[in-house]
């Protein structure tokens, strides 16, 4: 949407600084930004992060490798399995452990189901930002409860699973796992139709999101963005395709790529990724065979040899990387969590300057940040 040109003013105006404080219904957690506005048009955005900085990296240096899995959960609490996966993959890479096949397929199923529930949370929170206050949340949380019920049957916890271990899984899944996953997929497909009917073709929704918050391809790469926020700008970069881990190179799925780089593209991309995740899970269920979930000789004390590794996986928000430096022993020497939210937030100023104030909230919602991951 082209910015309208205002007639020349005869009087002088002043720019106002508006503080969207740490406590705000639509900042997705404790995020603060100071907008400098000229009338309704945003001239400058200064984001302040760090209100949720809890020192996960420092605390993990004092923890054993198995204790640190809980901290990864709490960093990225909407896509826990993807966060745990990066961490255990880093340990496995350093110790050169071969994970049994059944564990890898189950990991894939759980990670993709977690992607589905995370994207549903996005549709709920984003719908609330755009104006579908409450209804979007209700629809999306129904689907999240369905998926969380399945996770609770397997792992015992609703939100902080701590189920992956270096080498495989902590314990075997339930006996009716395959039937339950198929039930969940049926219900999720229906939920997707609800979300589509509510928002995708809604002309008010399109008017609020089409053409808003664009970022060009070169800028997106330069800022180090990743995930759906990057793919909406036309960059075909999905770590599941470019550097496949688990068995992503053996299943068939498409990676949606946007054209305009605006907010509506990011929304459509995530809804389409839910469909592709359903496709991946169905294929994984076909290939699941009985077998062990941990290698035969797992040491009781995990001691990694000296070395370092940077493992990157495609979390629902972007690239979740773990840089693990080990100098021997059973604790990491340095654990760096490369969070997608921090890198995506750097581009907020680029996307928001020149838009209206009401669009600032919509753009922030479309980046889909989780403050615990940004601040760690």
């Amino acid at each position, binding site marked *: 949407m082209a910015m309208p040109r205002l007639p020349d003013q005869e009087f002088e105006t002043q720019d106002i600084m508006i503080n969207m404080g740490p406590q705000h219904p639509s900042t997705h957690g404790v995020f603060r930004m100071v907008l400098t506005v000229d009338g309704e048009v945003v001239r400058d955005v200064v984001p302040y*992060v*760090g209100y949720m*900085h809890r*020192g996960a*990296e*420092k*605390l993990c240096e*004092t923890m054993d490798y198995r204790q640190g899995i809980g901290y990864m959960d709490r960093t990225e609490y909407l896509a826990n399995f993807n966060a745990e996966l990066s961490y255990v*993959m880093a340990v496995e*890479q*350093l110790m050169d452990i071969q994970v049994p096949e059944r564990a890898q397929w189950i990991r894939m199923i759980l990670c993709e189901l977690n992607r589905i529930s995370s994207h549903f949370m996005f549709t709920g929170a984003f719908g609330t930002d755009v104006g579908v206050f409450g209804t979007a949340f209700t629809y999306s949380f129904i689907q999240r409860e369905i998926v969380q019920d399945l996770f609770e049957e397997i792992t015992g916890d609703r939100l902080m699973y701590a189920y992956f271990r270096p080498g495989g899984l902590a314990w075997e899944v339930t006996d009716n796992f395959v039937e339950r996953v198929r039930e969940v997929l049926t219900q999720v497909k229906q939920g997707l139709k609800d979300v589509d009917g509510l928002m995708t073709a809604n002309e008010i929704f399109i008017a609020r999101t089409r053409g808003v918050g664009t970022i060009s391809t070169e*800028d997106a*790469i*330069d*800022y*180090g963005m990743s995930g759906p926020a990057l793919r909406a700008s036309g*960059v075909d*970069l999905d770590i599941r395709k*470019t*550097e*496949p*881990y*688990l068995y992503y190179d053996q299943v068939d799925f498409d990676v949606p790529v946007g054209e305009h780089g605006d907010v509506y593209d990011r929304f459509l991309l995530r809804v389409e990724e839910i469909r592709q995740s359903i496709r991946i899970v169905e294929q994984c269920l076909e290939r699941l065979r009985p077998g062990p979930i941990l290698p035969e000789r797992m040491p009781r004390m995990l001691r990694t040899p000296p*070395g*370092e*590794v*940077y*493992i*990157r996986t495609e979390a629902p928000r972007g*690239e979740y*990387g773990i*840089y693990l*430096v080990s100098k021997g022993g059973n604790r990491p*020497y*340095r654990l*760096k969590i*490369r969070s997608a939210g*921090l*890198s995506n*937030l*750097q581009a907020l100023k680029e996307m928001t300057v020149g838009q209206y104030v009401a669009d600032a909230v919509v753009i922030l919602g479309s980046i889909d940040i989780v403050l615990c991951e940004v*601040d*760690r």
Partner: protein
Amino acid sequence: MTTDETQPARATGRGGAQPASPPPPPSFDDTIWPVVDRALAGVTATPERGSLDLIVHVPRDEVVAALRALKRHADLGFDYLRSLTAVDNEDEGIDVVYHLYSTAKRLNLTVKATLPNNDLRIETATGVWRAANWLERETAEMFGVTFAGHPDPRTLLLPEDMTDTFPLRKDHPLAEIEVLQGEGMGYTAEGQ
């Protein structure tokens, strides 16, 4: 997981007695090292094999020139900065680590520069990738490294009034568990 890189000849110390012969110098020709070596002509670069990617050690004063050369080289084109961080090796100094990625050629590279403990300054990489902006701010406040020429050297994650200690350094202790109310902030609960 892609495991197409073979492990280097490491002395494992297991497997019975073997005659003591020096291991052959490791060769990096099966990685992207030859191309990187050409790109970094004029910069003293030392390769090392990491667990997944190639690591290149570059002296501190030539880091930004090396990064710029790596970005501009036609065969490499590292246009994506994945991560920028630091590692505190207590006596040997602080290593600043850059993880690079090339979107066109799909290549990965890690670049490391070591800073001595008495002089923790390095030039900023924001001129090469804008992604380095916040990553350098975070590294600066966590380790006490100064990035010379940074456009916006404020604290990112830590509170503005607590910048005298650097949490991620090895000599920074963990907090003690406070038992009494009001110890942490100097506030007391109402009514007390």
